[in-house]
């Protein structure tokens, strides 16, 4: 079976889908691994590293796509790329199937088996393949480091002969995987951290990192069976905004990671709240690219609003591309290995499996994922 890893083309993306160590493991499974020339460059891996691992280097990108049985990638394919693929080819990557209906249609029509990395279920057993988690985790770290580098202050407290520097106040909205890691990193650096999340179970998790949980009574909230947050009603969002206002005004750094799986994130920090913050404060909006939690955030950019730096860079884990690539590659490998037929040496698409079916979007010319199918059929 031929596994192909083309170079990522998204500007600013430094991560690579497969690192040499993992390429070696894939070869050991009995797969033929084709790597596009220069694929590893941005994360500091040379073609030679991949050759040493047992992969072949392919220079012709079109040929790579055309011959691949399985494509291992980070980002969704372009329409042009889909046209290059063999029917029956398995394409594994982030897909954003909730929004990319055209793409899903194109994949379906091409007869590609499209596996969406964001649809990996969040069970204990599937965590090793869960790329959303692995990347969000690094994002949590990176967001704090970014915030720290824009803040004209230091995060820790220091009592020195030249006076006492107060610890920076950091407020994290949304304490999922990224939020928790952001909390942990900011705590490590000595900041005073407060966090809020709508899912009630999170309070204990926040405290387990030594941070403070902001109690807001929003009435009925909760989480889905998959562990994601439920969407709030507009009234609840308003209540939350009001309750957070004071905390935000007193914060040096606000990091927002509040997301609702499959929907646009709620706007939780409005312009007037930003204006209430002190000059020099920093806001990091994790989801700026998909709409963001902060009013006025610009995807991919840092903007200055009334003296407050609002960071909407996005693609956070690409900042620590080497580690992020390692983790993403592991996720891919675990997914491949879990579905690998040892005898026939091929990736077996088994609809009886307890993980895989949930993340296959298209297969055999059909959209096989129920939620997506319904969504595309008309329901919002």
């Amino acid at each position, binding site marked *: 079976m031929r596994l192909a890893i083309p170079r990522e083309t998204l500007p600013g993306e430094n991560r690579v889908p497969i690192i040499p160590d993992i390429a070696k493991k894939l070869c050991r499974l009995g797969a033929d691994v084709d790597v596009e020339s220069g694929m590893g460059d941005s994360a500091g891996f040379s073609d030679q590293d991949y050759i040493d691992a047992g992969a072949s280097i392919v220079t012709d990108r079109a040929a790579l796509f055309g011959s691949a049985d399985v494509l291992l990638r980070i980002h969704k394919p372009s329409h042009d790329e889909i046209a290059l693929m063999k029917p029956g080819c398995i394409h594994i990557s982030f897909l954003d199937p909730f929004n990319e209906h055209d793409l899903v249609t194109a994949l379906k029509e091409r007869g590609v088996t499209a596996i969406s990395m964001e649809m990996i279920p969040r069970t*204990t*057993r599937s*965590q090793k393949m869960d790329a959303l988690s692995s990347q969000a985790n690094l994002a*949590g770290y990176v967001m704090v480091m970014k915030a720290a580098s824009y803040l004209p202050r230091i995060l820790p407290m220091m009592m020195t002969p030249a006076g006492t520097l107060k610890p920076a106040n950091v407020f994290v909205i949304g304490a999922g995987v990224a939020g928790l890691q952001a909390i*942990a990193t900011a705590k490590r650096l000595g900041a005073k951290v407060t966090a809020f999340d709508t899912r009630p179970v999170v309070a204990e998790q926040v405290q*387990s990192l*030594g941070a403070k949980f902001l109690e807001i009574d929003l009435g009925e909230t909760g989480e889905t069976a998959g562990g994601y947050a439920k969407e709030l009603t507009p009234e609840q969002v308003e209540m939350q905004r009001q309750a957070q206002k004071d905390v935000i005004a007193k914060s040096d750094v606000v990091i927002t990671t509040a997301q609702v799986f499959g929907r646009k994130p709620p706007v939780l920090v409005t312009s007037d709240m930003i204006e209430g913050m002190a000059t020099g404060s920093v806001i990091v909006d994790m989801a700026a690219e998909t709409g963001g939690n902060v009013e006025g955030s610009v995807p991919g950019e840092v903007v200055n609003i009334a003296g407050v730096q609002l960071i909407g860079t996005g693609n956070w884990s690409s900042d620590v591309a080497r580690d992020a690539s390692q983790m993403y590659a592991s996720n891919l490998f675990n997914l491949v290995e879990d579905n690998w037929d040892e005898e026939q040496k091929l990736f077996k698409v088994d609809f009886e499996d307890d993980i895989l079916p949930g993340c296959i979007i298209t297969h055999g010319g059909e959209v096989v994922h129920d939620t997506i199918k319904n969504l595309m059929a008309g329901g919002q």
Partner: protein
Amino acid sequence: MQTLIQFAFVLSAALFIFGLKQLGSPATARRGNLISAIGMLIAIVAALMDQGIVDYRFILAGFVVGGVIGALAARMVAMTSMPEMVALFNGFGGMASLLVGMAALTPNAATFTLVTIVLSILIGGLTFTGSLIAYGKLSERIGSGAVMFVGQQFVNSLIVLGILGSAVMFCLQPDQAHWLYLVVGLSLVFGIMAVIPIGGADMPVVISLLNSYSGLAACAAGFAVDNNILIVAGSLVGASGIILTQIMCKAMNRSLANVLFSGFGSGKVETTEVEGEIKPISVDDAYYVLEAATNVAIIPGYGMAVAQAQHVVKELTELLEENGAEVNFGIHPVAGRMPGHMNVLLAEADVPYDQLLEMDDINPRMENVDVAIVIGANDVVNPAAREVESSPIYGMPVINVDSARTVFVLKRSMASGFAGIENPLFYKDNTRMLFGDAKESIGGLIREFGS
């Protein structure tokens, strides 16, 4: 001479006390036993000096027979059958008191002497048969379950009445030997009846109690033959035995009455889906196990984070290492609630990185681990992932703590973890549950190391 003998007795009693004291601490216990044995030697030598003794043949014969049997039995018994051996010895001690009591009977004894004779016979007799039954149950020569039958209460009451009646009659008519034999017989029967309804699991408590009785029997025999050291040593054993019994009951979380009467050793396995029994352990006892361990693995989970126990865990690690043990941490990739959760905490507590082992590194070593301490982890050590095909986590690699010799699980309750599934680990033979907040439990262990 007589006075010298008496003071030798004082000395030997002092040695007994000192020996018992030292027996109470692991560091000195063996020496304590020796000291107590020396006390016994002195007492015996002193007794042999007695001017009343004119013929040493019988004595010698008794010594040789008894000594050889005792020595051989003690040598040959398997380590695992020590407790029943103790029961047997204890029974012999009781029998000896019974015999001494009988032998002390002189035609024109005072009533007080008669009473003490009856007591020594009664207590000695029931100690003897009771111990034999305990021995039988422990060695599984007879069924170890609780034997109960209808009318048991009634029969027992009859026996007690019979004993009382014949004892009174004997005191009134000491020349009528049959009253005496009736007392002997009934007390032997009573010993049997008292112990059969108690289950095998409770035998240690019973033996301890019988041990205390055999002390009292010796005490009574002492009165009968007017011998001082018997009285003192007997009452000492009687008193400390009773207290030891009580302590053992407390360690088993039962009352003495419960053990003797209502409990009937019927076991207290809760009805759970999983087979086996939950065995809680106290901090004290956990300490003694840890103190003897040379290879310890610590498996932290989300509960360590909730308890914020990382600092005390680190301190415990240091103490274990000072004590000569090798300590490693086994970090399961999904432990906690965020990737790297355990790392953040353990780094905060300054645990050196090279003590942190990944799951794949610690699992092969697990068989050499004396004690695996699971601190607030649950799903990540759940053997159901290996064993129960129907489990939602079946197939996920977990840390195989159950291969360690002993597993301590520190959590607050029997509640399940994130995945919400039962954990058969808690019911395994080599698992002990140390219930309570992890920080407090570990704090307790640390304090034990200090004292």
